[in-house]
Structures are given as structure tokens and as C-alpha cells.
């Protein structure tokens, strides 16, 4: 798997929530870069798609945003996880782990028939 992959539908929100949890409040650009780094640069994010996804999370009340100032004195919009967001992250992470576990059972070669 040397190539860069696109982000699967629905997983971007989970990645964003998780990243916000570990890093604390973060602006859109920082968030995008961090997601790429965490993926070991395997993911190639189209930065533009991040913003509608963040808006959706905000409408659902999982994150909130405010305008702030970045380290090098740039105005930027910061996103931050809410309580509901933390709960949602736990739930979604658990679901995701279960899904991958099930899929793993199918994909691992049969050990003993």
C-alpha cells in the first residue's frame, strides 16, 4: 500500500473528532494537516471537503467553533470538541472497531478448517 488513498465516506467526521480530542481546539488547516500526518501521509485530503463536514458536525452539536488568533498572529476559526462530541466519538469509535473486527474475521486466512 504505497499509494495515497482517498478518504472513505463517513470516516472523515470520525477522524476530525478524534484529532480534535487529542489535540484540543484546532483550526481547519491545522486539523487537515494533522489528519494527513496521523495517517502517515497515506491519506490525501482534499482540504475543501473538510469544511462542509465540519459544518455538519457543528450543526449536530458535536463541535463548536469560534474565531481566534493562530500562533503566528493569523485570524482563524478554531474548532473544539463538545461533551456531546466526546460521547459521539466513543460511540463511533466502538462501532468502527466492531466493523473492522468483523471484516477482519472474513479477511484473515482460515487457520483450521
Amino acid at each position: 500500500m504505497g499509494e495515497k488513498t482517498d478518504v472513505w465516506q463517513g470516516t472523515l467526521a470520525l477522524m476530525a473528532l478524534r484529532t480534535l480530542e487529542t489535540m484540543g481546539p484546532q483550526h481547519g488547516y491545522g486539523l487537515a494537516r494533522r489528519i494527513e500526518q496521523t495517517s502517515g501521509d497515506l491519506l490525501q485530503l482534499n482540504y475543501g471537503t473538510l469544511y462542509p463536514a465540519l459544518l455538519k458536525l457543528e450543526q449536530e452539536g458535536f463541535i463548536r467553533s469560534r474565531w481566534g488568533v493562530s500562533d503566528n498572529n493569523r485570524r482563524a476559526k478554531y474548532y473544539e470538541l463538545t461533551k456531546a462530541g466526546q460521547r459521539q466519538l466513543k460511540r463511533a469509535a466502538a462501532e468502527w472497531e466492531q466493523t473492522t473486527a468483523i471484516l477482519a474475521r472474513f479477511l484473515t486466512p482460515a487457520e483450521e478448517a
Partner: protein
Amino acid sequence: MRKLRALWLRLCGIFSARRGEGDLAAELASHVELHTEDGIRAGLSPEEARRQALIRLGGVEQTRQAYRERRTLPGLESLIQDLRYGLRMMARNRGFTAVAVLTLAIGIGASATAFTWINAVLLQPLSGVAEPNRLVTLESVTPNNGWVPNSYPDFIDFRDRLKLLDGIAVTKPAALSVGNEDHAERVWGELVSGNFFAVLGVKPELGRMFLPAEYGDTPGAFPVVVISDRYWRSHYGADPGVVGKTLRINQHQLTIVGVAAPAFHGSMPVTAFDLWVPYMQQPVLNGVQVRMLQDRHNRNMLGIARLKRGVTVDQAREELAALAGRMAIANADVSEGMSATLLPLWKSPHGPQGLLVGPLRILMGVCVLLLLIVCANVTNLQLARATAREKEFSARMALGAGRARLARQVLTESLMLTAAGAALGLATVPLLSHSLKFLMPPGPMQLLVAMDTRPNLAVLAFTAGVCVFAALAAGLAPALQVGRLNLSARLNDGGRSGAAGRGRNRLRSALVASEVALALVALVGAGLFARGFQTTLRIDPGFDPNQVLLSQFYLNTSGYNLQQRKEFCRRLAERMQSAPGVTDVAYSDGVPLGFEPSWWEELRIEGYAPRPNENMNIFRNVISPGYLPLMHIPVVEGRNFTEADNEADDAPLVMIVNEAFVRNFFAGRNPVGARVHGWGSWFRIVGVARDSKYHYLSEPATPHFYVPFRQIYRTDMSLAFYVRSQGDPAGTLSALRAQTRGIDPNVTVFDAVPLKEFIGASLYPQKVAASLMAVLGGIAVLLAAVGLYSVMAYWVAQRTQEIGVRMALGAQPVHVLRMVVGQGLKLTAAGLIAGAALAFALSRVVSAVSFTNSAMGVGARLLGVNASSPAIYLAATVFLCALAALAAYLPARRAASIDPMQALRTE
């Protein structure tokens, strides 16, 4: 929850669209700057760093679009855009909007009114009752399949033996006199079996309804009364302490036990009663002899039954018919050949709905017709508008609007127009639906109309349905037309606006032709009904109703017994006879061609062997000796009744029969002196009277007989008093009042009308149908004319250039005139042919619609004439042609006055 919150935020987003977009722009700008700085730090030149940043961000427009779609609800947002745009268009084209909305308001208002009536009369005949769909009316069936009310003993048998019913109640409408002698007021009430409210499921608003202890069959044991909410408010100022007070009814004290729920106003559709008294109080209140309550022959009670849950009408009907069959055998002396059946409430032949069902059906049909014409008109208007707006649509399409979006825009506008029309139409419903009162026959019934004129849920739902139907019907064609718009062809048209394609003109022509066709149907319908009404009016009733004043007395309300009644009649007749100008005085039980039920007696005729199943129930009237001379009905054989034909023991029972009676039962024999059996005794025929009309003007000659008032009159019969005078019958009213007061100040003269007006009641359904058709037919014709005019005017406007060219090449104004009018008439002709065929087919259907009169429970035809009366078709055709010529002439004149130079220079 989360989803709802998101939805709400998106909904809010619609209204702050601009702010949100600015926010995103700032965020994206900051994103690019942050990214660029990173690039510079990594060693790129500022330009290269910025370029990279923009590339990685992806298409800004796509992001913006995705963001916008997520921020708001795109479907709703574009709907709001459509609505805003539609409103602007409506405001800009005021003339178009006004015409379309008004047209729609007429169509929708008329149908909503018709539906309000149908709803009140047929669909929800009783209000304030529990589960009305399980209620049915119970009718006794005569051997010749007529429906008649029930007797009290029959009711008791039905009540005690039927297993599939949750109860049967009986009721008898009655005029009651309430208050003290000097200011008595007549109030309509119902005499009901004790279980009446329990069967109907009516709740008290105050106090209680009748208790099971009051359900009994003991005469005179229950001096109680339940009053209506209306009466409670009007007479007691809604006093909560009313329960326990006494009410003086027919000179007897009754205790008010409760007030019925406000929605309940009795057991007859569209009729409002105010008092309910246990039936068993009748002997006390009305002086009815107790034995008549036990007489199976005394069929005067309307039955209402409640089906057990899960039982179908058919099952219950079967059980009832079996029981009634056994009863007919057990009580063969009075009930031979009788049966009983259950009917849906609205089918009951008693009460006003019997008259209204037929006319209302036709009314609904006509309203559909009207609505179709309205839709055709509005479609035409919109098609014209859509053609005029083609440039606008083309421009929008060129800018990327989808066809579906444009079609939706047209439909949205159509829906807005119909919604505005519906709102306007609905506003008129309370006003119009009140006019149901004018459709009721004159006399007591008119006062009783109870009509909830506020549009209720059913009416609103119906109107909404009609509205959507009209929007689709009127908007679909224009929407499809927009959908088919050929962009390149339109833009290449080089700005020549409005030369519509052939296909579209064909559509509009077809619409106008169909409007003309529908108008012809309406006009022919109106003509047929009016003609039918006229023909019936011209039928000779066989008696002379002119200059006769008829008044009906409710002597039972004064607590008279039989002897007192007869005495009252005799003395009043004596006094009136000597009043100035009075030539004849008479009194009887039934009034010919009247509205009240008419009664019959089962006869056995000496020397006549009835065929099996032959109906020997012959209608009769109970008359004073003066009746036949007063009515100018000649006695053709034998003699008239005299004062000697009285109740004295040595006076033999006598009878006068009509000519049809003789033809039927005395073929070739001399009837005078023959014996006839009825009321348990033998009567001798003393005379033969000329045939006259008894129930309907259009009825064929029917056997009928008369018996002397003094011999047969009973306390449960009505009393009609006739005075013939030389002058205006209304002039004798004051004399009648004075004389009545002179005999007994307690007796009030109610309902005095000229007989001529009263017998008009038998024509009522026909009159109603004729006047409704005339009004709606007029509207339909007017709308069709407007439609034709608008199409012709548009056609002329479209061809201004062409006409200019023709005139420049030498065409005379008269040629142009002929061309335009000819075009209009061609459309009309096509419509007329189709309309005539349709009208012919429909009139066959309509001529089968009949109405029932409470007198007989048999149908009479609404449409008295031959459905194919050619003169009416011809007249309607000629009239529509003339109207079409006029509608085409106005635009034609404008076309003919076109200045060729001016026309060629336009555009």
C-alpha cells in the same frame, strides 16, 4: 434529536444565507494564508506556495456549493425562491392574477359550498352523536315496497328481540307549545323513546339524559324534558341552575333534567330541535289516547338503530326482515305483507334530506363541470403567460436552470394562484352555505335548518384537494410546455416574441372548445330543468288553490281532547262562514300536494278480489263536508258528505272515492252503495269525486278516498283549515285570528299561507334543481365566454404582424374581421358538437335521479321532460354561437383597425 437540531439550524440558515457565506470566505482565506506560510517556511517562493495551497484546497466553488447545501435546506430554499419569484410575477401582472384568482375563487367557492351541504346532509347527517357510522334508520316496508315509519308496539318487539343491534330508539317530531296561555311560544321538539340518547350516544352538557328507569312503556309516568344547548342559551341565558326547573309544555309542567351537548340538535339531518320529551308523555301532552300507543296500525315513529360492533348492515337487515316477517304473520290483521329494513341515515325518506339528496347530487355534478371550465380557463391564461415568458425561461435555461426547476416554478405559481383562489372561495363558504335555507320548502321546516356554516375539517380537506387538483390541472400543460422548450430555437428566434408554435395553439384551441362544450352541457341542463319545472307547473292539480288561505292548527298543544277539537273546528267554521268576503270554509287532516306525511288505510272492497300482492293500502283524506266544494272538486256521481254523516250511532259510516278508485276496483259496476272495509268497520260509498293530484303534480291518476271528519278524525291527526274568500287570501288572516281568539285565546294561529304557495312545496326539489342549474349555468357560460375572448384576444395580439402584412398587401378590414370571427366560430362549433353529445349522454343519467317526499317514500323524477328536447339544444347552441361571435368580435375589431405600418414596425 441531533438530526432535528441540525434541521432547525439549517432552516435558520436559509434566512442568514449571506452572513454564512461571508464566514466561509473568511475561513477559506485564512486557510490559504496559513497553508502559504507553511509553504514559504518549507522553502517555496511565495507565489509557488500560494499556488500549491490553492491546488490542495481544491475547487473553491465546489466547496462553497457543498458548504451552502449543507448549511441550508436546498429544496426548501429553492421553493422559497420560487414562491418569492411567483409573488413578484403575480404582483407585476395584476390583471392576469385578478382574473385567474377570481375565476378560481368562483369554481372553488362553489364546489366547497356544495360539499359543505353534502357533508351536512349526506356524509355527517347527525352531529353530537357517538360513532355515527354505526347508526342506521329503521323503516317499516309496505307490501308495495314503500318506506313508512313504525308503530310503538312494533318498536317494542324490535327492541326486545333483535340481537345484532345495540339498541333501537324511536322519535316523532312534534310542535310543542311552551309557556303560559297568553304568551305561548311554539317550539319544535321530539317525542322520543326513553333510550333515545343512550342509543345515539349523546352526552349531557349539564344535568343528565333520561335514566334507564325512564325507558319504560308506562304512559304518562315521566314528566321530564331535555333541552337543547341553543334553547338553554336563548331562553335561560346559559344558567347553570336550569336543571330541576319546570317548563310548561302544552299546559303541563315538565321538569328539565338536562341540557344536551351543544353539537347535538336532534335525529334529523339539517334540522334543529330544541326539546326532547319521553314518548310516553304523549297521552298527557297531546291528549293521544293510550290505545293508540298500542295500535300497530298507528305507524308514525321514526326508528334509529345502532348496529353492534362488527355487525354489517346486511346481517342486521336479514335478522330484522326475518323478525318482521314473523310479526307480519302474527299480526296479520294489521301488518299483512309488511316487512322492515335498515337504511343508512341519509337514505331516510323522512325529513328534509329526502328532498335534498337528488338536487345535491346534481349540484355536485354541476360544480365539477364548473371547476373543469375554471381549470380550462386558468390553463389557457397560464399557457398564454408561459408563451409570453418564453424569453425569460430561455434566458434562465441558458444560465443553467434545469427544465425540471422551471417546470416546478410554473407549477408553484399555479399552486399559488389556486391557493389564493381557494382562500377567497373558502371565505365565501359560510355566506353561501347559509343559503341552504332558501332551498328548503316554505313553512315550518325553514325555521328548523341547523347548518354549521363554519368550514370544518372535512370541508377544508376537500378544498385543499380541489385546490391541488386545480393547480395540477391548470399548471400541468404550461409546465410541460416549459419542459419541452427548445433552447437554441428560442434564442435563435432573434427576439421575435410570442409567435407560438402550432402544437401549442392546438392545445389552447382544444381547451377553448372543451370549455364551450362544458358550457353547452350546463346550459342545456339549466334549460331542461327549467322546462321540466315549467311543464309541471302547468299541470292542472284538479282542484283550485287560488284565493284559499290555509292554516294549520296544533290543537294538541292546547290540551284539547277529541270532542273539544271537533267542537272547535265546527265553531270556527261557523264563525268564519259569516266573515265578510268569505265564500267557503272547510277543514281536513291532510293537505293535497303538501309536505306533511299523507296516510293510507288498508281496504277490503266488496265484490273485488285483489290480485296476490296487490297493494290495498289506499291513500285517504279526512274531510269536512265543505272540503270538496271549497276545492272546486266536483262530485260526479252520488252525493257529497253532509253534517248528518257524523259520529251518531244511527249515522252509517260513509265514504267518497275518486274516479281512479272506481276504474281500479269497480270495472263496469256501480260504486255508489257498495261497501268497503277499513278501520275495522264497513263503510258505504255515497259519492264519486273527480280525480285530482294528491302528492306530486306529475303523478298519474291514483286511487284515493275521502271519509267524513266527524266519523274518522282522531287526536293524532293534523288539522288544516281552509278559507276561500273573494279577495286576497292573506286578507282573511286577520279575521281568522280574531275568530280563533274569540273561541279560545289559548289557540294561536300558526303557519297561515295561501294554499297556492303551500302546494308549491311539492315542486320544491324541481324548483331547487332548476334555480341552481340556472345560476351555475350562467356562471359557466360567462366563464366560457371569458375563455374564448382571452384566446381570441391573444391570437390576435400574436398575429398583429401577420395581419399587418395582409392589410399592407390589400386585405380589407372586413376580411380581417371575417377571418378572426371565423376562427372563433370554428372553435365554438367543435365545442358545440362535443358538448351536445355529452349533454345528451348526461341528461339520460340525470333524468334517472329522483327525489322523495316525506309523504310517500317513493321517488318522483326531478327532470320532468324528455331528455332529448331538441328545442332546448337548439336554443342553447344558438345562444352560445352568438356569445362566441361577440367574444371573437371584440378582438376582431381591434385586429381590423390595425394600422399596417404600425404593425410591421412593432418589434
